[in-house]
C-alpha cells in the first residue's frame, strides 16, 4: 500500500514539475497546478488539493519543488489559511465551501486570518467572550478580537464565538467563516514595541453571518478550533535555516563590526552560535524522524527554544554594539508591514525588539512548557478551577 502511494506521489510530482517547470511558471499559476495535481495537501481527498495519502509525503513534495527552483512561500504568506483553515474546511465545511474556497486559498488569491484571541482570552482561548446570537437563520456577532495577523488584507476570517454563556466554557462556543468585507467588521492596526503594526484589533459590531457560514454544529466551536490548532505545528513545518543564519547572524555581524578583541563577548557569541546550531540540527533530526514516520519529542521543543534564544542573542548583540546599541536607526514609523517580523530579514535593532514577542505569540513560553511537561513528558496537570461551571461564572479579567 505504502509502496503504491509512494509511486502515486512520485508520478504526480514528476508530471507537475515537467508540465509546469517551477522556475519558469508564475508562482500563482504553479500553485494552482499544484492544487489540481493533488499536491497542495497530499493527505486531502482527490479534487480537494490532495491524493488521500500519508501527510508525511508533503515534505517530500515541498522539498522537490524548492529543489526545482519553485516557491512554497504561499504556505507562509497565507499560513492561517493553508496551515489552519484548510484542515478545518476539509473536515467540517460543506462541499460547496470546499470547492469555492480551497483553491484560491492555496494560490493566495484570498488571504485568510484567524479571529480567536481576545483581550480577555489570550492563553485561555476557551475563555473568549465575543457573542453570537441567532436571529432567523442569521447570527449577530459582537465583540473584539486581537492579535489577528493579516486581518487588514484578509478576505476570510476563521472566527470562534460564544453562543451559550450558561454552559462550561468549552461547551458554549460556535465556529464561523467570517467575510472580512462584511458590514460591522472594523480592522484597526495594533502598534507594537517596534512601532509597526503586524497585528490588528478587529472590532465586530452587529456583524451578520449567515448560518451557512457556520462550521460545525452550534456549541462545537471548541473542537473545530482544535482541528485548526492541531494543524499549527504541521503548518509551521519544516523550514530549516542555513547554518549560522537567523538572529545569530546579526549578532555575528555586530561582533565583526563592534566586537574588537573582547574575549568575553567572543565566548558568549560562540555559545549562542553553538546553541543555534544544536537547535537547527534538532529541526533537521525532527524532520528526518517525521519523514521516517517516527516523530519524537525533538519535534516539539523548537518553539520554546528559539523563543528563548532569539531574545537572548539579540539582547547580547545590542550590547556588543556598545554605544550604538542605544540607537534605533530606522526610527519608529508606525506602519503596517505585509509580512510578519520574524519572517523578514531586518536589522538587529528591530529583531531585538521584535523577538520580545517570540515567547508570547503562538502560545506563550509558559503555555509551551505546560504542553511539553504534560503532553510530552506525561506530568500531571494543575488543579482546574474553571471546569464544570458555567462560563459566565468563571472569574475573568
Amino acid at each position, binding site marked *: 500500500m505504502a509502496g503504491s502511494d509512494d509511486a502515486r506521489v512520485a508520478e504526480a510530482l514528476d508530471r507537475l514539475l515537467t508540465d509546469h517547470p517551477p522556475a519558469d511558471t508564475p508562482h500563482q499559476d504553479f500553485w494552482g497546478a499544484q492544487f489540481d495535481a493533488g499536491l497542495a495537501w497530499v493527505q486531502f481527498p482527490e479534487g480537494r488539493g490532495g491524493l488521500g495519502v500519508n501527510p508525511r509525503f508533503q515534505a517530500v513534495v515541498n522539498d522537490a519543488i524548492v529543489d526545482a527552483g519553485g516557491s512554497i512561500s504561499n504556505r507562509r504568506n497565507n499560513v492561517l489559511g493553508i496551515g489552519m483553515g484548510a484542515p478545518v474546511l476539509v473536515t467540517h465545511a460543506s462541499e460547496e465551501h470546499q470547492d469555492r474556497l480551497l483553491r484560491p486559498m492555496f494560490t493566495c488569491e484570498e488571504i485568510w486570518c484567524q479571529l480567536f484571541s481576545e483581550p480577555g482570552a489570550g492563553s485561555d482561548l476557551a*475563555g473568549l467572550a465575543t457573542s453570537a446570537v441567532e436571529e432567523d437563520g442569521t447570527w449577530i456577532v459582537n465583540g473584539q478580537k486581537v492579535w489577528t495577523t493579516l486581518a487588514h488584507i484578509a478576505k476570510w476570517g476563521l472566527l470562534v464565538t460564544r453562543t451559550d454563556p450558561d454552559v462550561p466554557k468549552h461547551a458554549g462556543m460556535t465556529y464561523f467563516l467570517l467575510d472580512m468585507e462584511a458590514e460591522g467588521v472594523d480592522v484597526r492596526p495594533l502598534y507594537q514595541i517596534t512601532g509597526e503594526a503586524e497585528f490588528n484589533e478587529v472590532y465586530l459590531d452587529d456583524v451578520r453571518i449567515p448560518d451557512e457560514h457556520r462550521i460545525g454544529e452550534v456549541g462545537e466551536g471548541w473542537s473545530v478550533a482544535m482541528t485548526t490548532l492541531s494543524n499549527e505545528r504541521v503548518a509551521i513545518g519544516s523550514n530549516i535555516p542555513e547554518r549560522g543564519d537567523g538572529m545569530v547572524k546579526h549578532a555575528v555581524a555586530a561582533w565583526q563590526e563592534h566586537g574588537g578583541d573582547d574575549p568575553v563577548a567572543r565566548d558568549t557569541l560562540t555559545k549562542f552560535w553553538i546553541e543555534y546550531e544544536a537547535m537547527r540540527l534538532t529541526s533537521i533530526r525532527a524532520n528526518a524522524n517525521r519523514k521516517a514516520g517516527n516523530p519524537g519529542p525533538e519535534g516539539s521543543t523548537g518553539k520554546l527554544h528559539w523563543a528563548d534564544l532569539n531574545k537572548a542573542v539579540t539582547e547580547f548583540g545590542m550590547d556588543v554594539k556598545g*554605544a550604538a546599541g542605544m540607537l534605533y536607526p530606522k526610527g519608529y514609523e508606525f506602519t503596517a508591514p505585509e509580512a510578519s517580523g520574524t519572517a523578514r530579514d531586518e536589522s538587529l535593532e528591530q529583531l531585538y525588539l521584535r523577538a*520580545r514577542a517570540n515567547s508570547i505569540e503562538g502560545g506563550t513560553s509558559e503555555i509551551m512548557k505546560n504542553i511539553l511537561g504534560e503532553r510530552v513528558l506525561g506530568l500531571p496537570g494543575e488543579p482546574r478551577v474553571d471546569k464544570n461551571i458555567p462560563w459566565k461564572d468563571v472569574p475573568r479579567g
Partner: protein
Amino acid sequence: MAETDVVIDFTQTDEQQMLRELVSKWLGDRSESERVRELMDTEDGFDTAEWAELAEMGLLALPVPGELGGAGMGWTEVGVVAEEMGRRLLCAPWLSSAVLATAALLHVRGDVADELLGQLAAGERRATLAHRPDHTEVTFDGSTVTGTAGFVVDGVTADVVLLAVDHDGGTALVAVDAADLTATPLPVLDLTRKQAELAFDGAPATVVASDADGVLERAATVGAVVLANESVGGAQQVLETSVQYGRDRKQFGRAIGSYQALKHRMADTLKHVEAAKSAAYHAVRTLDTDDADETLVASAIAVSYCGQVYEQAAGDNIQNHGGIGFTWEHDAHLYFKRAKSSKLLFGSPTTWRAALADHLGF
C-alpha cells in the same frame, strides 16, 4: 582596601525621606504615562515650564554648595531623586545638566565653573557633557574647538556643552555655547532620553578649568552611579506593575500571578531588585566620601549589576504581561528601552567589571 576601613551606612535621613516624597508627588502630577508619551514625541523631549519647577524645588543643584545657589546636600540625595525619576521615566535633561555637567563643574570649581553652577542651579541655563571619550574627537587650540562628540545626552537642547580636551600636556575643561556648534539628534532606541551627535568647527570655547585632570572619570562615575539609582527605581516600578497585573489578570479562572511560572519569576526579580538597591544606595553614598578605592569598587558593583537587573526585570515585565506587554500603548516597552539604553550609556557592564577585577587583583 581593608574591609574594616570601608564605611557602609544605609541610614536614611528624614530629610532624604521628605525629598523622596516631594519628588514622588511632583512626578505623580507631571510624569504620568500620557505626559511621558507627549514629551518623548517632541524633538526637545522635555518641557521648559516643568524645568523651571524643578529649579524652584531645588532639584537641579542638590549637591551644589549653598553659596552658589545649590541645596548644599550630597550625591546621596541626588540618588534618591534619580530613583524616583526612574520609576516615572521623567523626560527632562536632568541627568545631563544636574548630574553630568554639575559633577564635572564641581570637580574643577573656580570662578567660571561656579558662575555656571549658579546658572544651572537657577534653571537659567542647561549644560551637558561630552562624556564618552571613545566617541569624542576634538582638538582645542587655546580658544576654539574642532571635531565631533557622539552620544551626548540632551546635546540638542543644552545651552552649553562641556568638553574635556587635551591642553598643555594635561586636560582642560572647556565650554562651548550651543549657538556655536551643530547638534544632530540621534535616532535613539529610548525616546525618553534624547542624545545627539555634535560637530564643532572652530567653535569658540571658554576655558572653565585649565587643570581638569580626571574630570571625565569623575563625572562618568557620578553619572553612572546616579543612573544605577535611577535604574533600581525603574526595576522596582516594573516589578510592581507585574505584580499588579498578576493580581488583576485572570486566565483559566485564576489570577495569573497565582501560577508559579509568574510568581517565581517575580520572586526572582524581587531578589535581584533588593540586591541592586543595596548596591546602588551604597555606591551613591561613596560619592560623598573621599574614599577613592571604595568609590571604584562600589561603582563597579552598582553600575554593572543594576544595569543587568533592570534589563532583566524590564524584559520579564513584558513577558509577565503577555500580548499587551508587547504593544506600543502599554508602558512596558518604554521601561525596556530605558533599561537597555541605561545599561550602555556609560560603557558596558563588562568594562566596569574589568576595572573591578584589576582593582581586586583577579
